[in-house]
């Protein structure tokens, strides 16, 4: 083929197996796993899935364990919160009590399930985000996900604006600080009000720029049909194999869990 495919950009995870996979396929798999997990309410099934998912992400991205652990923090925090709320507030057989606090068996089970679910989705999201280039994702969503060109390129233009925003924000903050009163230590004061003014200025400037960019996109003929596509994001056998593998493992775990009597669905909430 004479036209080179749109591969992942050179970078940290560029060479990894997961980075070479089709972004739309990865995103769809993330959705399917999340959807299946949404109706599972026992702790064992998501625990097994979490171990498998974490192993798969480490193997396919080659990520350092410390980095993976660090990226887990928000999910662990959220999971812990969900776990505690359920353990302490869900009615059922009391397992432990101290003063006004009581923890139920059902609470532990459902809370644990929800917390582990958070971690499964979390680790998969980490794998997806660290291995996927935003530009390639949009092109792939356009080519394989049937996303319209207007939406695709509007998002890509927004991405470009986002690249320039930190610099713009820095300049606005500087420009506002010139007239700000000084704190006792000599630095310009930075009040929440000043922050709001800066945000407003950034908004005005960005909206203007967005209008001009929209005109530029129109003047480039965005929205004409028919249109062609130059460099394709490849969709290969390896992508289908990955999809089949992930769905196969998911089905196997769910079925085995059911056979062993661990699996519980929505009814777990009603007991």
């Amino acid at each position: 083929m004479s036209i080179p495919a749109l591969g992942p950009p050179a970078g940290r995870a560029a060479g990894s197996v997961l980075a070479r996979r089709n972004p739309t396929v990865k995103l769809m798999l993330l959705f399917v796993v999340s959807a299946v997990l949404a109706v599972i309410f026992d702790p064992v099934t998501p625990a097994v899935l979490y171990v498998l998912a974490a192993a798969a992400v480490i193997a396919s991205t080659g990520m350092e364990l410390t980095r993976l652990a660090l990226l887990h923090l928000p999910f662990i925090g959220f999971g812990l919160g969900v776990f505690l709320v359920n353990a302490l507030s869900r009615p059922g057989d009391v397992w432990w009590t101290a003063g006004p606090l009581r923890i139920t068996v059902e609470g532990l089970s459902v809370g644990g399930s929800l917390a582990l679910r958070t971690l499964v989705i979390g680790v998969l999201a980490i794998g997806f985000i660290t291995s996927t280039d935003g530009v390639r994702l949009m092109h792939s969503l356009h080519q394989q996900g049937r996303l319209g060109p207007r939406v695709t390129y509007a998002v890509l233009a927004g991405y470009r604006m986002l690249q320039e925003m930190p610099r713009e924000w820095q300049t606005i903050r500087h420009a506002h600080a010139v007239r700000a009163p000084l704190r006792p230590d000599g630095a310009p004061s930075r009040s929440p009000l000043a922050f709001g003014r800066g945000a407003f200025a950034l908004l005005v400037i960005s909206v203007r720029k967005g209008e001009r960019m929209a005109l530029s996109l129109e003047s480039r003929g965005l929205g004409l049909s028919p249109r062609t596509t130059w460099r394709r994001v490849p969709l290969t056998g390896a992508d289908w194999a990955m999809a089949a593998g992930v769905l196969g493992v998911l089905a196997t775990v769910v079925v085995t869990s059911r056979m062993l009597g661990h699996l519980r669905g929505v009814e777990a909430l009603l007991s």
Partner: protein
Amino acid sequence: MSSTESALRLDDVCVAFPRRPEPILRNVTLVLERGEQLVVFGASGSGKSTLLQAITGVVPHTVSAALTGTVTVNGRATTQCSVVELSRHVGTLAQDPSSGICLPDVEQELALPLENHAVPADEISERIDRALASVRALTLRGRRTDQLSGGEGQRVALAAALINGPDLLLLDEPTSMLDPAGVAAVRQAINTAVAAHGPAVVLVEHRLDDYAGPDGVAGLPARAIVLGEDGHVVAAGATSDVLTEHAGRLHAAGCWLPLETELQAVTGFSGGLAEPAVRQGLRSHAPPAPAGDRAAEPVGPVVLAVDDLAVSRAAWVPRRRWARRRRVREAPEVPKLLERVSFRLRTGEVTALLGPNGAGKTSLLLTLAGLLPQAGGSVSGPRPGLVFQNPEHQFVAHTVRDEVGHGLTDAPPGRVDDLLDQHRLAHLAEQSPHRLSGGEKRRLSMAAMLAHERPVLLADEPTFGLDRRDTLATLAALRSAAVSRSVLFSSHDLRSVAATADRALVIADRSVIADGPVLEVLRDPVVLERAGLRLPPLLQWLLLEFDSADQVRAVLSWLDAAPAVVPATAAET
């Protein structure tokens, strides 16, 4: 769509905006054949941009305005087809490279118009190469768009506008936001690309002095129209004829004009600097050469002392303590933009800060204003004020009045009104700062900063993007601010610098390479070479012709202030 259709035809076009009582364009009639080039002259606000919008179909499709008459592009009435549909025939290059480029990579940016026009995929790569080659930017193909300079960005945007071979190319102030090197590169790119593709061209540009370049009037499109203040076409014809006849009117309207036209407007003679009568006219406005050494002008005391200052952008990046401790040995040296910077600013003096793009002029000003931490050395003196390149970055309030009063704690009553009057903003007091024109925004940003009465005023490219009238007003404001202050401003416009500044501070090669009386600095070929500064022809001639700074400055200020003379049509024929 037959080949006999004109590329562009306007018939009796009027455009009126809903909330303005007067139409902005009136009865504009114009025909442009394929391959013909047209330049549109007119003062700020005369409807030049609206004319381009009416051609692209943005008026009336995107911007709500009443359009009467007909605009046809390649035989298609713009009212009958959408802006996107018209893009099959029209390429547009807008003024701001940061919003004229939409995608993160140069390659994708150029592929987009081809994909939209359904060019077969296997032809796209080659056409990208051809388009980039035609704007002399082949080496940019693999670059990310956020790393392009302004001039590079404009060339990529021009390639994208031309890549589908449009019948009509619209250039909307394509070089007004570029530094001199960028202007030259983009001008050459436009010339070669237009020669290669052969579209009809409509150019709107207010820095016509820079845009015309060394060729002068011959460097402009061959045909011209002049839009009057009321939106009528007041002249049309060959560019040199139009300029000869209307030089005075355009000059009086505050337009930037090619040098020979400006000289004709004020001396009454055509022919530019090569013409003896013009030279004589200029000479006659210089005072006699002073006998002997002139006594040094009295300047005030030092208000800002800069000693061995180092400037770094990276210094502000917050470094986590634990990270620094852990990797203390491998911590990279913070790269310094400037080192060993020492100079003094005195009350009553205007100093120009010169240097190539990226030399660190803005970072130096930010450091002096206390907004970037010093990476070494010291700055001693009271807190300076700073006016930013883009006035919008400074605006904090919702009305002009509040903007001027912002941060004033113990101002006497009436102070804000005085400032509004002084800076000709009183009639705009209740408007939103973001809705003002470019010149008004600049006046407001200066007034708001001057309200703080800081003994040092810093300004970053304060005349950038302004028309001639607003540029002169801004320079005059800097000059009068210096009566009770010290002023330091950065600029690329050496003529303005020579006319306004007392001293020049030149930075290049990571330090100060010259600091002295402005004309002495500008006479030093080594300094000019190292800082990448190129003297405009007028200044070059003046520096050769006159020895004393007073004489040079007298001629420049006479030129800036001179009323236009009535065209000497009789003398020409």
